[in-house]
């Protein structure tokens, strides 16, 4: 920083305090479920109990007879498009003739009280003819099950073929890996308030979402309304992790408001939330790694099958992420990858933090450990030997132009201190089993494991996921406007930091996050710091140019000589120094900027093409204590060095790293939606287990700061990488402690006790 006063200003590089931080910890923050309107009614959704059934009839008369019930709507009441979807529009607003998963919406009611609405749902009679359900992804591929949807049972099949397909390595290791279905488990459940326009031809929606403009597009199509008649404002969001990218209650809520001409409030409870949003794809991946005797990776072969559930959501994009990241962060010239994502009667799957790469990484990192053993190398050495560098070519043929400090991530992770050895008489709470007091020191074995990952940033395959921002400078105050969904990641503070840094003014106000401005794209794919950060930066720079032009004209100085130093405009070649606040007095400057990333290409049939924008890397080392006789695990420490480009807010960056690690730990040892015959057995936080404070490890972190030239602020996205390779690192550590193969996550106690 150029001046001493800068240290007290909340500019880029400081741990500036989030504007929503204090209200959240004090309980004053208004989440979407806290929004009320006079005269409002409560909406509720009737869902299918069957994974696959034909609807013979729906009788709503019993519900309508209940005092306080205003309306019941079904597929017949959808005025526009009957389906929605992020990539293909294949998911019905309400099931009309057939239900394809247990939990699919069939009808919705509006009533004067949530309890009345609940009773109304119980009073709707749906006559189902139960059909046999397609639950095995392989059956969707082999054609042995009739199509369960007009679009067919295979959502996408993508190969990645590169190099000499007859190549056989000196050493070949093989493995078959499986991942269970993880839930985003965000806080702040799905909630919305819809206000109908007086003329009934438009609607205003306050909703917790990840991408306002995509919601707007899909809602308008289903309501058969012009885009501008669907106005969306972000309701307070607790978290998202991909789980709010798809439509959940948006169309239902708007439709009820338009039919009743009353404000409608809808909110899911935790149980309904499990049915109301998509999940992480369960997957099976079979891999062969070919290497030279010295451990040089030569060829990866993989067959990946992802279960997309009943509807497409973002499945096709998740799949290409998986198949194009199958080599991991390692040089490899030859690839034979075949990936499928298929439709079944399981709950729909879509975006979740890591987006297809989580699954690929668990497989390729497990393979790298096998390769290390086969070649007589340590887990660290096999990874260093093959570490990707900038300029290397991926199995898609794309050259990695991003900063690629893979070797540095590994070395700096290895240099972080190991945890202290277990004490002779440790606190029982610190042992596997925790408060259950199951173990003593003598029951415990410690293990160490590694995971390293590569993750693409932004959207891929030719999609222009641009971001828009507006900067207005008036009366010495900056006002920023953008439609960037704040889902907990902290863009609201980053935007303020950017504006303060670029313009030298500390008071930065934020307009409501809404569709009153152009799209910011989705808050996903680790993209908002880069994309919306670039847009805010761009808009602020346009305002600064005008400010400099004004100061230049006033003081007869070439504007090109002017810079902002802290809170002053300074002539770099003269003596002029004027406070920005003074220089801007009387001015009203207002600029809007769209940031676009460089264009990408679609993959060809052999999976070749420059399909991704940029990449980020991270290494994880896990230390775990295991009670092998009971199969219980305590993750003691995660050490990580992450390629972040540049740290813009140290506290926020640390939060992303620690949070991502907790989520990856969850997938490693406890988080799974258990399905039996297509039905969820544990849709609650009683039985869908998230890590508690006693499960969370110590985290030691090194941020690798090598600014990314392509990125507007030099900063890479940091949201996803923390949760990707930590999962295989933890499993590798459990293998190290127990000698068990452990090819499936989450690792369950019985897998450790009874597994091979």
């Amino acid at each position, binding site marked *: 920083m150029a001046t001493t006063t800068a240290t007290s200003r909340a500019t880029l590089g400081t741990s500036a305090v989030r504007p929503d931080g204090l209200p959240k910890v004090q309980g004053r923050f208004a989440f979407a479920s806290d929004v009320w309107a006079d005269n409002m009614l409560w909406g509720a959704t009737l869902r299918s109990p069957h994974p696959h059934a034909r609807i013979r009839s729906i009788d709503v008369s019993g519900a309508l007879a209940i005092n306080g019930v205003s309306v019941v709507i079904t597929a017949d009441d959808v005025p526009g498009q009957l389906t929605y979807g992020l990539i293909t529009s294949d998911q019905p607003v309400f099931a009309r003739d057939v239900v394809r998963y247990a939990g699919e919406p069939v009808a919705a009611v509006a009533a004067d009280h949530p309890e009345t609405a*609940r009773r109304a749902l119980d009073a709707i009679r749906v006559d189902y003819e139960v059909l046999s359900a397609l639950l095995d992804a392989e059956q969707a591929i082999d054609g042995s099950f009739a199509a369960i949807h007009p679009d067919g049972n295979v959502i996408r099949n993508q190969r990645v073929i590169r190099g000499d397909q007859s190549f056989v390595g000196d050493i070949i290791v093989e493995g078959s890996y499986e991942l269970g279905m993880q839930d985003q488990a965000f806080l702040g459940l799905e909630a919305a308030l819809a206000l109908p326009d007086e003329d009934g031809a438009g609607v205003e929606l306050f909703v917790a979402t990840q991408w306002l403009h995509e919601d707007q597009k899909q809602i308008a199509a289903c309501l058969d309304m012009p885009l501008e008649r669907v106005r969306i404002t972000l309701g307070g969001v607790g978290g998202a992790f991909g789980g709010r990218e798809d439509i959940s209650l948006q169309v239902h809520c708007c439709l009820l408001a338009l039919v009743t001409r009353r404000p409608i409030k809808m909110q899911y*409870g935790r*149980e309904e939330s499990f049915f109301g949003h998509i999940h992480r794809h369960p997957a099976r991946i079979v891999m062969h790694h070919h290497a030279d005797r010295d451990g040089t990776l030569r060829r990866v072969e993989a067959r990946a099958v992802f279960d997309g559930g009943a509807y497409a959501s973002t499945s096709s994009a998740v799949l290409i992420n998986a198949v194009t990241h199958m080599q991991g962060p390692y040089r490899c010239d030859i690839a034979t990858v075949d990936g499928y994502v298929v439709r079944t009667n399981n709950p729909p799957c879509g975006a979740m933090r890591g987006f297809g790469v989580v699954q690929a990484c668990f497989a390729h990192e497990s393979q790298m450990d096998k390769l290390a053993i086969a070649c007589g190398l340590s887990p660290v050495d096999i990874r260093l030997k093959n570490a990707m560098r900038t300029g290397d070519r991926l199995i898609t043929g794309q050259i990695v132009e991003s900063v690629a400090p893979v070797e540095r991530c590994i070395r700096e992770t290895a240099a972080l201190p190991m945890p202290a050895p277990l004490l002779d008489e440790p606190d029982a*709470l610190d042992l*596997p*089993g*925790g*408060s*259950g*007091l*199951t*173990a*003593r020191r003598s*029951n415990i074995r410690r293990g160490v494991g590694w995971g390293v990952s590569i993750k693409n940033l932004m959207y891929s395959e030719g999609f222009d996921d641009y971001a828009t921002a507006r900067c207005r400078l008036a009366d010495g105050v900056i006002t920023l406007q953008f439609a960037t969904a704040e889902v907990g990641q902290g863009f609201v503070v980053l935007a303020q930091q950017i504006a303060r840094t670029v313009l030298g003014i500390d008071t930065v106000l934020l307009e409501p996050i809404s569709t009153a401005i152009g799209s910011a794209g989705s808050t996903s794919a680790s993209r908002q710091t880069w994309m919306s950060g670039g847009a805010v930066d761009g808009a602020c720079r346009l305002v600064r140019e005008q400010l400099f032009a004004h100061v230049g004209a006033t003081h007869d100085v070439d504007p090109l000589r002017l810079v902002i130093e802290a809170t002053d405009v300074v002539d770099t070649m003269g003596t002029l120094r004027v406070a920005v606040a003074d220089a801007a007095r009387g001015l009203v400057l207002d600029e809007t900027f769209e940031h676009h990333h460089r264009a990408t290409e679609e993959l060809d049939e052999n999976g070749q093409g420059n399909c991704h924008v940029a990449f980020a890397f991270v290494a994880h080392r896990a230390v775990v204590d295991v009670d092998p*006789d*009971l*199969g*219980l695990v*305590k993750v003691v420490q995660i050490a990580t060095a992450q390629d972040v480009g540049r740290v813009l807010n140290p506290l926020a960056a640390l939060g992303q790293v620690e949070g991502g690690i907790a989520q990856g730990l969850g997938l490693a*040892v*406890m988080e799974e939606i*258990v399905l*039996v015959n297509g039905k969820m*057995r*544990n849709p*609650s936080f*009683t*039985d869908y*287990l998230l*890590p*508690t*404070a*006693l*499960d969370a490890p110590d985290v030691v972190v090194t941020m690798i700061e090598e600014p990314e030239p392509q990125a507007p602020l030099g900063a890479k996205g940091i949201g996803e990488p923390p949760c990707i390779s930590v999962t295989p690192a933890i499993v590798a550590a459990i293998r190290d402690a127990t000698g068990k193969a452990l090819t499936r996550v989450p690792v*369950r*106690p*019985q897998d450790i*006790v*009874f597994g091979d």
Partner: protein
Amino acid sequence: MTVINATTVDQVVSALREYPQARLVQGGTDVMVEVNLNRARVHDVISLRRVNELRRWHVDEESGTLRIGAGVPYAEMERAPLCLHVPALGEAARTVGAPQIRATGSLGGNLGTCSPAGDGLPVLSALDAIVHLRSADDARDVVVHDFMLGVKQNAKRADEVIVAITVPLLVGFQGYAKVGMRNAMVISAASACLVHDADNGNVRLAFGAVAPTIVRARAAEVWLAERVSLRNSMSLDGAIAREFGQLAAKECAPIDDHRSTADYRRHAVAVLAERLLLRAAEKQGRDE
């Protein structure tokens, strides 16, 4: 919906006579889950929260027993002085839910719900606890084994309220261990309570979450007593402890569900029984 805020047991039992379908609510940690998940519509409620006599406990030195009011919260059981009288109960109390749950949940609720996964129940079983019931007409005492009838089924009549539980104060080791799928705040997949009654020379072992109701491993208890002197000091080797665990595990009838598998549960209780018995022997060694 009627809500009766009783302040005495007498008020409770007369309210029960007037509203025989009423739900008794102490901490609400079970009832509210049912309500929130739409599994129960509660019409009439008798709140026990303000019934102070349910929240008292006292030691009777003469009979060597502890009487715990049905509404004493786990938060009190997990701390001294109460946990010093019945250490296994303290350990079990510490595994119940989150601090907020422990501040309001109670043994009365555990017994009233009578889930096989109730954390306090294996302790009451191992201690041969007496459950004290009251109605408007009478008062009766039921041994905990006769009280727990099955999954969420107990011997309490609709007109009765659980007022207290009496357990013996014993000399000797007692411990509780619970396996869940995470390290805290988790429902039991399998649990065990082992009590060494050094004065009377026996070891009592109870399992939770491995059968429709709490299991007492009586055959294993007898087997052990025939092989090892349990009066005052206890000395045994690892092989005995292992066999004891394996024998005891045969007495349970676990199921596969979304939390775990029958095989794992059977295995886990064998390990827990073995470890608890070794701890008992170890403590004996240390005390001498």
